[in-house]
């Protein structure tokens, strides 16, 4: 069966099915969303206007039988937060079900009549357009519950009140196996773009779907076995390994010890309360409360790493999933808050309202710097979410993200690149990540250059970690390999076993080659990743971005970051090398 694209026109509520055209046949996940956005969305369009689209695509191997940790769904469009191209991916139930319906992509375009809102039900028989009046004004916890009453065990993609208000920090929620809205394509405001299409939710029911074709079953099976063994063997990804035991918040204490943990709106690199909001602290709370909380939770069926968690409230009932490192940092250290219970409540508010937790925490930190609250005022910070829920002008400002909040409060220390605020790694102390923040096609993004070791793409052995030299090449190699993994549907955390264990890497490549029926080597992976980056970079150029936008904020050049008392010192010329090849190749 050939993969299809379903094009859903919200102007006339019609859905049409198309074969995947040859030019896009090689793409999945991020590669697919970026290829379609590049070709179909005018780069200068208003992100909330009628010409923007939301493209949804499962990865290459998503939906295949037992490819481990491969359930990612990519969401693409032009970002209202950054004005750039955007791909944001999430775990949860949607990717596997979209893929099992034989769909390579869903393209959502057009705009319905004013104040018309729909939810869509996508099954093997087609697309139904349902009146969403009864869902309006509701948060994602309630939406997921309501929709599972009529459509049990389905995937639910949706937006909270933030997306209805078309706020630039509105994310897209995907339900997890417990039908909670814990998995987010959070960054970049694509929830507002879905809102601009008049779509409150999308139900995906894969019952009776054709499943995913595997062109070379033998190769796929060999690769699957090697990759699974590597994940199960590696200290970080195996059962009770670092990720399974402590989740991504295992990084809190490490980055703090290194002096690279942005604290109180990026004014220091260490937070005295870091240990209280770390993965280790989450594990202690889960054990002590001995209720429905858990570590080692999987965000979708078939994940064998299981880095997610369910954080319990004081009575042991499930409060929120998942409390990630970047979330605990943004709503915690960066606001000077060390109360894990309140951070968990704020995370639940974000998941309900449909907000990206990183941008939300950073916006509160900016408001604190602007004098709205004291740093460390946990109760005050929690109450701010009511402003968004109640659609007050204050809530709308905070929901527009860091740059809008900084303007409203007259703050000049604004930790953004291309309109998107930085995640939990201080670039003055951790220089390499600064290059990726500056040059990423998505704005400041910690997942744009994900790797665990510098040995990929032939950069091995050429690096002195203490100098700035070579960081441009390295960042490009990281960004390209990440674009490949984002296209595959695999979770980025497979990077550990595949880069440390050779057979794991071959296994990953073999599963992709097996599904797609193509010849593929490790070198091809980088080349494909660069193709994705090139499309994204050219889209941004056509939208008006230049190399002058590939810069970190000015204050990081003159304000020393304690405890190391360092400033951002990378030269502009070095940064400009990262994408110099785009017009040379």
């Amino acid at each position, binding site marked *: 069966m050939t993969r299809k694209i379903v094009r859903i026109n919200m102007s006339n509520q019609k859905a049409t099915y198309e074969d995947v055209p040859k030019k896009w046949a090689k793409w999945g996940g991020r590669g697919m969303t970026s290829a379609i956005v590049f070709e179909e969305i005018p780069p200068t369009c208003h992100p909330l206007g009628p010409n923007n689209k939301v493209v949804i695509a499962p990865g290459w191997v998503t939906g295949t039988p037992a490819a481990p940790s491969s359930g990612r769904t990519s969401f693409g469009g032009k970002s209202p937060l950054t004005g750039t191209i955007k791909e944001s991916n999430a775990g949860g139930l949607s990717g596997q079900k979209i893929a099992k319906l034989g769909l390579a992509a869903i393209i959502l375009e057009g705009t319905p009549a004013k104040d018309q809102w729909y939810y869509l039900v996508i099954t093997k028989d087609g697309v139904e357009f349902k009146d969403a009046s009864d869902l309006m004004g509701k948060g994602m916890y309630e939406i997921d519950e309501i929709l599972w009453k009529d459509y049990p065990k389905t995937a639910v993609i949706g937006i909270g009140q933030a997306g209805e208000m078309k706020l630039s920090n509105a994310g897209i929620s995907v339900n997890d196996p417990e039908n909670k809205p814990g998995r987010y394509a959070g960054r970049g405001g694509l929830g507002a773009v879905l809102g601009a299409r008049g779509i409150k939710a999308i139900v995906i029911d894969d019952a009776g779907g054709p499943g995913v074709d595997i062109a070379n079953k033998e190769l796929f099976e060999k690769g699957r076995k090697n990759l699974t063994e590597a994940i199960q*063997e*590696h*200290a*970080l990804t195996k059962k009770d*390994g*670092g*990720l399974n*035991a*402590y989740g991504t918040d*295992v*990084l809190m*204490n*490490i*980055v703090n*010890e*290194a*002096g*690279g943990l942005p604290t109180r709106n990026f004014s220091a*690199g*260490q937070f005295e309360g870091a*240990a209280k909001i*770390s993965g*280790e*602290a989450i*594990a*202690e709370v889960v*054990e002590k409360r001995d209720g429905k909380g858990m570590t080692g939770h999987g965000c979708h069926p078939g994940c064998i790493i299981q880095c997610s968690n369910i954080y319990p409230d004081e009575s042991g009932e499930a409060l929120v999933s998942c409390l990630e490192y970047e979330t605990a940092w943004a709503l915690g250290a960066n606001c000077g808050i060390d109360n894990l219970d309140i951070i968990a409540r704020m995370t639940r508010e974000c998941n309900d309202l449909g907000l990206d937790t990183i941008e939300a925490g950073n916006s509160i930190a900016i408001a604190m710097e602007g004098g709205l609250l004291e740093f460390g005022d946990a109760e005050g910070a929690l109450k701010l979410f009511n402003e968004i829920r109640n659609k007050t002008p204050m809530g709308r400002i905070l929901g527009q993200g860091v740059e809008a909040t900084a303007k409203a409060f007259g703050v000049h220390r604004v930790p953004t690149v291309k309109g998107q605020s930085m995640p939990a*790694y201080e670039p003055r*102390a*951790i*220089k*390499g*990540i*600064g290059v*990726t923040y500056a040059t990423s096609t998505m704005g400041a993004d*910690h997942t744009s*250059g*994900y*790797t*665990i*070791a*510098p*040995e990929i793409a032939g950069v*091995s*052995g050429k*690096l*002195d*970690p*203490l100098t*700035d030299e070579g*960081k441009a090449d*390295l960042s490009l190699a*990281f960004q390209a390999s990440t674009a490949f993994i984002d296209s595959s549907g695999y979770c980025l955390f497979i*990077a*550990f*076993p595949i880069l*440390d*264990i050779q057979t794991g890497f071959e296994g990953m490549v073999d599963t992709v080659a097996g599904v797609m029926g193509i010849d593929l080597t490790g070198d091809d992976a980088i080349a494909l990743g660069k193709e994705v980056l090139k499309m994204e970079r050219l889209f941004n150029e056509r939208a008006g971005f230049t190399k002058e936008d590939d810069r970190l904020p000015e204050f990081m050049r003159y304000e020393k970051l304690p*405890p*190391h008392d360092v400033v951002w010192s990378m030269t502009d010329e070095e940064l400009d090398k990262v994408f110099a090849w785009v017009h040379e190749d």
Partner: protein
Amino acid sequence: MPSITINISLYGDIAKHAGGHHVAQTEIMLDGDPTIGDLQDKLGISAEEKGYVFKNAILCDVPGFDAAREESLCEGDHVGIFSIQHMWPYQYRDGVRMSDALARALNEKGAMHNIYKATEE
């Protein structure tokens, strides 16, 4: 011989060596002119259990290396030691300040890899 007080944080399984479960944050007295190696020995932390090691926010050791043992300690220093299973992806540590001894060790032995058979090695 005068003793000095070192502020320590142990993270993960090794917290048990200072009375913790997942985290132990405490102070410890050491005699003479101690090093991080002396501290590890006093706490009973073996090379196999140890992952990243920091002294006063400077990275002194990484999994699979043993580059911090000679690092000297002074009154009031802070030392953070992580268990072997703690992860830290490369791009989130690329460019952090590190000790001269670790920089030398990395230049000699090549970049670190995450140890994936910690208990067997």
